[in-house]
């Protein structure tokens, strides 16, 4: 059984001018110890999907349909207090901006100890020892001293390490990492990716890694889901998606990334831009920009179907 199962998830935003469909029929699953990358452009619905899983959707956004199951137990309809116990204990979270994820008025030790004591029976002394161990594990030098420092005394990369320590402090089975390296410099980004990979290997933690950076996904993920306009365009093993993307959108996305090793004069470009949520076209959401669109794409919405090693929601791969 999969650790996390998301089935037919649909997230809506009721507004005065009608209901916006931000995530539309998204399904995927995540195995123990697996890293699933979720990529897409801003507004594709990748962060909303992550927030829905940890139960932190900002109202008026709401789950309108579908199910989210963790270890077979449904978690999308739990009352607030129940969900609070799962958050932290079973699902950890790492967000983009490490400064806003930490409380500036408490030392990092206090924040770690509070989280540890909320979810376990440890005494304050044990919790403090555990906090120092955690800081050392995420690679903060001088952890015994640093545990009493406040967030502003850490650099960006070190703060993100503290946030990761908070996320793993009670050994959750799943970590939702939403753009964990976006706010960091490349050399620091490499350190954080290496850290996440090591934790995943040592503890067997599954990670849902949400990012717009294909390079980070290529380095870290086992499988990748490409999202477009609130839907999954393609999902499959990371190597297949990067090397031979099947969906025209993921193919175009890969081509538009400048690469160090090649000296192409022009980058491939996808014409136009992602539609606004109010203007999603009928049929396949990508059809107006798709160079290979045909009549069926404009009227009928494709579901995920097998295309080589991956699943792509594209009529090009319909059999018969």
């Amino acid at each position, binding site marked *: 059984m999969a650790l996390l199962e998301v089935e037919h998830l649909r997230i809506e935003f009721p507004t005065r001018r009608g209901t916006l469909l931000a995530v539309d029929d998204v399904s995927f699953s995540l195995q123990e110890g697996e890293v699933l990358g979720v990529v897409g*452009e*801003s507004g594709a619905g990748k962060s909303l999907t992550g927030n829905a899983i940890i139960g932190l959707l900002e109202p008026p956004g709401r789950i309108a349909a579908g199910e989210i199951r963790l270890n077979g137990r449904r978690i999308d309809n739990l009352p607030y207090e129940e969900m609070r116990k799962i958050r932290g204990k079973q699902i950890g979270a790492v967000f983009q901006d490490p400064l806003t994820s930490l409380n500036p008025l408490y030392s990092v030790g206090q924040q770690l100890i509070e989280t540890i004591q909320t979810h376990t029976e440890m005494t304050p002394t044990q919790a403090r020892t555990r906090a120092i161990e955690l800081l050392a594990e995420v690679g903060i030098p001088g952890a015994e001293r640093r545990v009493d420092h406040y967030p502003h005394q850490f*650099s960006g*990369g*070190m703060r993100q390490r503290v946030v990761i320590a908070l996320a793993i402090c009670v050994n959750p089975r799943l970590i939702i990492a939403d753009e964990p390296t976006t706010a960091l*410099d*490349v*050399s*620091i*980004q*490499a*350190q954080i*990716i*290496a850290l996440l990979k090591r934790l995943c290997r040592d503890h067997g933690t599954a990670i849902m890694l949400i990012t*717009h*950076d*294909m*390079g*980070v996904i*290529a*380095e870290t993920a086992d499988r990748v889901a490409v999202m477009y306009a609130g839907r999954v365009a393609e999902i499959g093993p*990371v*190597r297949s998606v*990067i*090397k031979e993307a099947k969906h025209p959108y993921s193919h*175009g*996305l890969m*081509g*538009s*990334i*400048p*690469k*160090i*090793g090649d*000296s*192409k*004069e*022009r*980058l*491939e*470009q*996808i014409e136009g*831009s992602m539609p606004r949520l109010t203007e999603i076209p009928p049929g396949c959401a990508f059809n107006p920009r798709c160079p290979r669109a045909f009549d069926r794409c404009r009227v009928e919405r494709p579901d995920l179907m097998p295309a080589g090693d991956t699943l792509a929601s594209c009529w090009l791969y319909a059999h018969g």
Partner: protein
Amino acid sequence: MAEMHAPLVKVAGLSRYFDVSAPWLNRVLDGQPRLILKAVDGLDFEINRGETLALVGESGCGKSTVARLVVGLYRPSAGSIVFDGVDMAGLGGRAEMAPIRRRLQMIFQDPFASLNPRWRVSAIVSEPIRAFRLLDDERLIVERVGQLLRQVGLSPVDGEKYPHEFSGGQRQRISIARALSSQPEFLVCDEPTSALDVSVQAQILNLMKDLQRQLGLTYLFISHNLAVVRHIADRVGVMYLGRLAELGPAKNLFALPRHPYTRMLLDTIPDLEMTGRQRTPVAGEVPNPINPPTGCAFHPRCPFANDRCRSERPVPKLNDTGSTTACHAVEEGRLPAGPLPVAA
């Protein structure tokens, strides 16, 4: 008039220091010294006509300060910026600057903050035309704005709209149209695609290359993204703590990097080719620029540093690949040419 083959921009010994001391009273009461942040510290480079020079580096390395110095938003603390034979640091008031200002324009990172939300796009794009009195007939201005909008891939009717009606990529196109409206020769682009999604970034980079070819533009391109720089630049300068570590033709710099910092930066780029290459994350972080390390600023993170690196600041020297490198180890030939050993 300068000759055509002379570099368009020549920067020599360019420095910019910021006084970040505590207020006077606190300094006197607590006996604190003055604190000077050397954001840019002795930079030399040239930009030839029609080429793209890119400056890369991590946050705090001073690359954006260079951009602001070159367009005249900051005055240099020392050194000179010669634009087509005229030293900009020596120019006095607005009147003397104006003819130069028309010939250089800037594109900023954040297309949401750099466009006035209360102005129509046509007013934004025509502002430089009006400010420099390039056209005085209203009908001609409207025509020119329409032509500029078409040139950047928008439609003349978009001039009637306000910035909020556009996406990030389209707004960056408006910024480019505004920059082009005074018919400049030189564009300073400070992270023009960093706020954009990759597919939009590809559109903007292609547009910038097309415009460069059509109009013979010269670019100073500031970015932290090495892959973007590899794609757009003819020559690349790698900055570290306000100094140039290495400067050379893009092709050689990426294929045969010499400076240990350049090598480490290249090594940290996530690998899209999926060769399974083992990456060596750079140990440590960029030091505080208020109190930079002595000698070579990179020595605390450098696996090849010796006593000379710790005490003597290296000078940029031309090496065998056609790049200039500021590194004692490269100069002395004690740096292996092959791949880097794993940093401690």
